[in-house]
């Protein structure tokens, strides 16, 4: 059913495109054979919007009276996507229901839409691994979260990406970045990052997250980068709204590296720092259009303002994205729906959105705010930069500044909601109450029944002060996030006297000298590599030993090894050394405990686990190195010489070692006999070599 629908819609669209003879009317017309998939991650895997997100998923929170998800879909429709897969996690039922009832499931939708449940995932990485396991991804796809607002024409970005892919299969990802000055309101303060880009190709060569709290003053780059790229730009002036074009390798890489969670911090950073994978990531820098992501309360505020002041044109309230909306634009960025009752003496100032069915009484002043539908606003109320959702009642003389008031809430007469506060669904606030800026009120009960917080909501009020459970555990991080993602910081002037904030700005100003070109190689110290190597050897050996002892699946053992290798950035030489140490150790344990004879022990272990080496030993040089490692290891063992002999025989049978390599090792490699132990342990080998050559001759003579 799904694909059929898509075909119809696509066909219709193509027809209209031809009629209008417009270039961007039907982007998919040009590349119909290359259907573009999009993955929408509906969950944010964060808690920043709590307590609002306790009841509604983030992507269904209203932004200017339209659910965030609509903006994402609108962007995907503009980008000419033909197939959308929505990954649902928290509140999956709500999201599914919303999509099923939306116009995107109609036959007129420009793409087919499908929801995929991934209830266990707790990070982007989990979701990607889930997708990989489900095998839904067939070609290059667009990866976005369900909370973006973007009007970038995508054909150019996509064409660039495809061109790069055609040239080089390893260009697995293109990140779309919007330029913006360091203190831009639409940038999420908590998630700033430094991108090191090649000036000519826009290849991203390094990614570093900025931890605002840690007073980061330096980043270290691999000196190798400077050999490969002549012109580098180190930039901190991007809004990174996590719009990526990914190849199918990306989910596969997530599966391979099961410790990757975050798409930027872990994945991009990981891929770029491990030179073994040889994958490259590019950036596409947008300078003309709008792209942003609602990832914190601060950006919620900023993006709302951007939508109202038409930076996101044509995605503005008066486009009436939802079928039943009737917004009309008026001078001064005021958007009003039909059926609003405004008292004669109330004032609606600029940059305001008012939804249908709302009544505003005498003397009320509304400035720069969003008011939802069916709200009742009393006399002499003052509302400034606030976000008031549907069905809210605000009684006379209340003052609301820079706060979010969710559906169904009631604010009592003469109450004051201070900047930064959040009043969640159906909370009732009594008269004459002052709600502090850092308070988040909710009615949603957690596990235990709490008593009503009468201090916060008043005698007749209804609601609790919300406390984040994670607050106690990670107070440092939490504080950082709260400080920098709260709604209010955006409105505070940047020169606020608040100490924690001014340290942030000082820190950022430090890095403000963006685009500093680095053309000479820097002498970065390569610190603590030795210790890394040792710890890798220890861990890898332990991992193989565990696998052997607990009789794991071969693939799992191999996967574990390769993850370790990437995490520690180790060489294959070390991987081999660790594997050999573990396996020979096992063999000698079997022999020493008299369980098996030397030959049987070697065969039993290597026949089972030998194939591990297939993923570690590739060419002849590797094989020689491998032989030397075995030889060296055997010097430490009882009956080392016979183990060596049988091991070589066994691995030769398995085709892991080739004759040529063995001969080169034996006759030509100087390291083979660098000390007495090495010579001694190899004493039995000539016999095997004799057998090898005679066998060869025999087969030749045949």
């Amino acid at each position, binding site marked *: 059913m799904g694909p059929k629908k898509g075909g119809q819609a696509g066909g219709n669209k193509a027809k*209209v495109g031809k009629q209008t003879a417009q270039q961007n*009317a039907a982007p998919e017309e040009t590349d119909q054979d290359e259907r573009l998939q999009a993955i929408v991650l509906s969950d944010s895997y964060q808690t920043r919007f709590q307590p609002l997100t306790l009841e509604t998923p983030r992507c269904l929170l209203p932004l200017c009276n339209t659910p965030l998800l609509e903006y994402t879909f*609108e962007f995907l429709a503009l980008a000419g996507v033909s197939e959308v897969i929505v990954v649902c996690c928290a509140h999956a039922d709500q999201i599914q229901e919303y999509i099923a009832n939306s116009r995107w499931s109609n036959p007129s939708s*420009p793409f087919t839409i499908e929801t995929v449940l991934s209830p266990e995932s707790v990070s982007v990485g989990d979701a990607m691994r889930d997708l990989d396991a489900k095998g839904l991804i067939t070609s290059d796809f667009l990866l976005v979260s369900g909370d973006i607002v973007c009007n970038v024409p995508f054909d150019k970005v996509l064409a660039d990406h495809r061109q790069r892919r055609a040239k080089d299969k390893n260009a697995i990802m293109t990140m779309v970045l919007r330029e913006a000055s360091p*203190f*831009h309101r639409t940038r999420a303060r908590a998630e700033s990052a430094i991108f090191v880009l090649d000036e000519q190709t826009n290849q991203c060569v390094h990614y570093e997250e900025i931890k605002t709290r840690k007073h980061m003053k330096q980043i270290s780059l691999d000196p190798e980068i400077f050999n490969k790229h002549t012109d580098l730009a180190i930039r901190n002036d991007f809004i990174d709204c996590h719009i990526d074009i990914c190849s199918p390798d990306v989910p596969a890489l997530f599966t391979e590296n099961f410790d990757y969670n975050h798409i930027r911090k872990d994945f991009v950073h990981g891929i770029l720092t491990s030179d073994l994978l040889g994958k490259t990531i590019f950036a596409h820098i947008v300078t003309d259009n709008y792209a942003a992501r609602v990832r914190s309360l601060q950006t919620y505020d900023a993006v709302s303002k951007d939508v109202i002041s*038409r930076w996101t044109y*044509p995605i503005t309230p008066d486009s009436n994205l939802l079928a039943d909306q009737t917004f009309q634009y008026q001078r001064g960025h005021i958007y009003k729906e039909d059926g609003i009752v405004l008292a004669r003496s109330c004032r609606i100032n600029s940059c305001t959105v008012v939804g249908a069915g709302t009544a505003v009484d005498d003397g009320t002043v509304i400035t720069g705010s969003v008011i939802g539908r069916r709200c009742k606003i009393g006399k002499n109320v003052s509302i400034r930069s606030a976000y008031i959702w549907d069905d809210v009642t605000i009684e006379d003389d209340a003052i609301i500044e820079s706060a979010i008031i969710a559906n169904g809430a009631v604010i009592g007469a003469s109450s004051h909601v201070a900047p930064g506060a959040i009043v969640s669904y159906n909370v009732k606030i009594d008269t004459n109450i002052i709600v502090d800026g850092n308070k988040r009120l909710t009615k949603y009960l957690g596990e235990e029944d709490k008593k009503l917080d009468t201090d916060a909501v008043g005698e007749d009020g209804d609601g609790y002060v919300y406390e984040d459970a994670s607050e106690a555990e990670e107070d440092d991080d939490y504080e950082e996030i709260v400080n920098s993602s709260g709604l209010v910081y955006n409105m505070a002037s940047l020169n606020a006297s608040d100490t924690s904030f001014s340290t942030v700005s000082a820190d950022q100003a430090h890095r403000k000298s963006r685009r500093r070109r680095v053309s000479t190689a820097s002498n970065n110290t390569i610190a603590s590599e030795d210790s890394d190597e040792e710890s890798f050897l220890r861990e890898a050996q332990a991992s193989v030993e565990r696998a052997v002892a607990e009789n794991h699946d071969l693939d799992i053992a191999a996967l574990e090894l390769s993850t370790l290798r990437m995490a520690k950035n180790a060489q294959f030489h070390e991987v081999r050394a660790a594997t050999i140490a573990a396996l020979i150790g096992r063999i000698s344990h079997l022999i020493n405990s008299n369980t098996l004879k030397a030959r049987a022990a070697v065969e039993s272990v290597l026949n089972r686990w030998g194939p591990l080496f297939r993923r570690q030993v590739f060419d002849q040089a590797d094989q020689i190195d491998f032989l030397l490692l075995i030889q060296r290891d055997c010097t430490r063992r009882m009956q080392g010489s016979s183990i060596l002999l049988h091991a070589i025989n066994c691995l030769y049978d398995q085709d892991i070692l080739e004759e040529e390599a063995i001969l080169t090792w034996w006759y030509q490699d100087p390291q083979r006999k660098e000390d007495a132990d090495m010579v001694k342990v190899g004493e039995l080998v000539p016999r095997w070599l004799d057998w090898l050559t005679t066998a060869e001759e025999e087969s030749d003579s045949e």
Partner: protein
Amino acid sequence: MLAAGAHISKEKDLNAHIEAFVAQIKRRQIQGSYNVALATSQLLLRVVSAARWTQIDQLVTQIKVLGKRLQSAQPRELACGNIIRRVLALIREESEDTNDSESGDGAINSPLITSMFSLLSTNDECGPNRQSQSLSDGTGRSIKKDLKPYIIEGIQELIDELKSIDESIASMGVEMIHENETILTPTPNSRTVLKFLLRTAQKRKFTVLVVEVFPNDVEKTHEFALKLAEAGIETTVITDAMVYSIMGRVGKVILGTHAVLANGGLLASAGAAMICQCANVHRTPVVVCTGLYKLSPMYPFDIESLIEVGDTGKVLEFEDGSLVDKVNVVNPLYDYVPPESVDLCITNMGGYSPNFMYRLVLDHYRQEDTTL
């Protein structure tokens, strides 16, 4: 049974088509009055050929409902509504013609008089009369079978007219532009003006000053100037600020427009009103080139509700965080040019004074369709 099923699926298909069209208009994937007009008429062609009706009023209501829906998708794009009204007028005319020829009494006054006057008289006296007539005459046997091909043919003609509009306007260029005249044009996004100038350049030698209309059309200006220059016309691109100082040397201002209102006023690219004022001060004639599909029966009672406000990012760079946060920016895409500022409108029907536009409106639209 089977036929009914096929009909339902066809209807569904059509509905999906309309929804997709609405979404595209909202997304500005179909943009510009010409493209919108063409797409609307093609959509109407599909709707009419799929529609089933027993009485002509049913079809009219159907189209009106559709028109309302399309119009509300983008209320500031008037071309869409214009085409709907044209088609409605066409349907009404066809049905009246059949009625007239069938029932003798209706034909007493109409055959002798030209269509324009019959239209006027319909509205004045016999309007309600005729309405009731067509209703009561609904029994008028199988008019639906006869009518459908005529209506489709009419829409087909409308489409052909749209496609050839620029040609017929361009052919009047020779009469407008003199040898060695200096022309100033502030609307480089107009295809009509481009073709007008190119066509005239085959016969005349003249100079064109292209105004840059910052911020919305700067790239288009450059393309426009390039095309003119390639055709061998002496072309100069000037900034918007230079217009007044250079106006004294200009022979004519040639304007493309987004829409023409019933009073002869225009909605043209932002900046056009100022340039027309400037031309008026210098007594320089202002000539407007427009296709009839841009002619709207609306009067500019509330000018602001007609002017679309565009992308703020074109005026101010979004990168500049401190400005974005503190400054309100508005980017209106069109200007209202009052009819007094315009000297002549060249349409595909010939040249008219802006004061005469209301007659063209009456000629092409029915009053009962003005509000959809």
